[in-house]
């Protein structure tokens, strides 16, 4: 079972740019679980994840175990490749 956690912020223009790309992948991989967190609104959940200095962050879980973490703005193809090649 695959789960993707996306951490972004309303003030982050790169996160806003990624929204459309996220939506495209959410539609394509609808069998995955997708969870969105806001850096400021969900700080109690986000803080323990120690996401570092660059957002948006994508954390990939398989069977509830973190297997990969990527960060930053990227185009749709790169994002898809990063999320699928775990």
């Amino acid at each position, binding site marked *: 079972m695959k789960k993707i956690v996306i951490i972004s*912020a*309303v*003030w*982050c*223009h*790169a*996160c*806003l*740019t990624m*929204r459309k790309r996220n939506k495209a992948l959410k539609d394509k991989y609808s069998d995955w679980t997708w969870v969105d967190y806001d*850096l*400021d609104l969900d700080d109690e959940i986000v803080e323990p994840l120690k*996401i*570092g*200095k*660059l*957002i*948006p962050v994508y954390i990939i879980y398989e069977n509830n175990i973190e297997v990969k973490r990527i*960060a*930053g*703005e*990227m185009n749709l193809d790169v994002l898809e490749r990063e999320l699928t090649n775990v």
Partner: protein
Amino acid sequence: MFKKILLILAVIGTILTTGLSVKAYDDKTHIYFFHAEGCIICAAETKYLDQLEASDPNLVIHRYEIAFSPENQAMLKEIEEILNISIKSTPSLVIGRKVIVGFTKNSTEANIESSLKYFRDNNGKDVIGELLGFVKPGSGVDINIDNGIIKLPFFGEINTKTISLPLLAIVLGTLDGFNPCAMWVLLLLISMLFHLEQSWKRWFLGGLFLLTTAVMYLTFMVAWLNVTILFGTITYLRWLIAAIALIGGGANIRTYLKTKPGCEVIDDRKRKKLSKRVKEIFSQPVFILASFGVIVLAVSVNLVELICSAGLPVIFTQVLSIQNMTGIEYFMYLLLYLLFFIADDIIIFVIAMKTTQLTGISTKYSRWAHLVGGIIMIILAILMVLKPEWLMLKF
């Protein structure tokens, strides 16, 4: 025969004694310098003109003090009408029909010398000389020294071959606009605006933030422009600005090389403090207090933005200060810069208000803006020190 000789001598004698003399004109080039008592820049130009006149025996410089001399002021008015120009500031130097306003060491000197050469090479018409009786009426060709230069309303003289200055304003303004320092505050503000029920309040508060940003930026640029115009002749100031440009350019290129595409997470404390302030603004029951809060927010955020811009507005005003322009022309160039600086913010705001969705600008554009901006800043820094006359942008 003797009577005839006597008659001729009598006629010559009569002519000489009655003063029917033919006025003698010299072949020298006359140029006209208008200065004001107490004007520091005028003093700097006077020093240069004294040297120029001493080194060029065919040059005559006529000097007119126009701040306190009513006669010179009246004469200036007449000259303005004939040349169809307006001399509003000092120092101003007139060569033929060309008026060179202001003085910056090297760049204005180069401009004066090239204008003088062009005027002489093309046997230019000395319109003021004719009026004041220094040159023979009808001599010379009525030319415009600034060949290829057109005069546009508000923007003044534009070199049609290069259109360099407007282009520079647009390029630097756009690059400065892509600097994301204050962008995150705008996005945060817009996200809060969505919670307001009345549409006009959303438009008003967002517009107020952008307007305050624009006014603040413009105020800074006008103030800095005045400083550079006033102290423009001080070489050390030019070097200081060149140093700022060099450091800023280096910082921009470093940002391009070091940062990855994406948003850097702003310091937790700073971010939370600002978020709290924005929330407080929107929780104000009195709308006028909310408006005041937005103005204070914009001012404080943009104070930081000015440092974050890494000197782009400082460099643009420096280039602007050495152009020969009137006050309104300077102002219009600053507005042009500002328009392109704030354009991306306006686009994001309008789209957000129309679609009730926030739109981001890809970080790849801001990264490229850092690289291009950095390169331009370093080039301008080098020119400021080595070839300041090139910054007149009249190649």
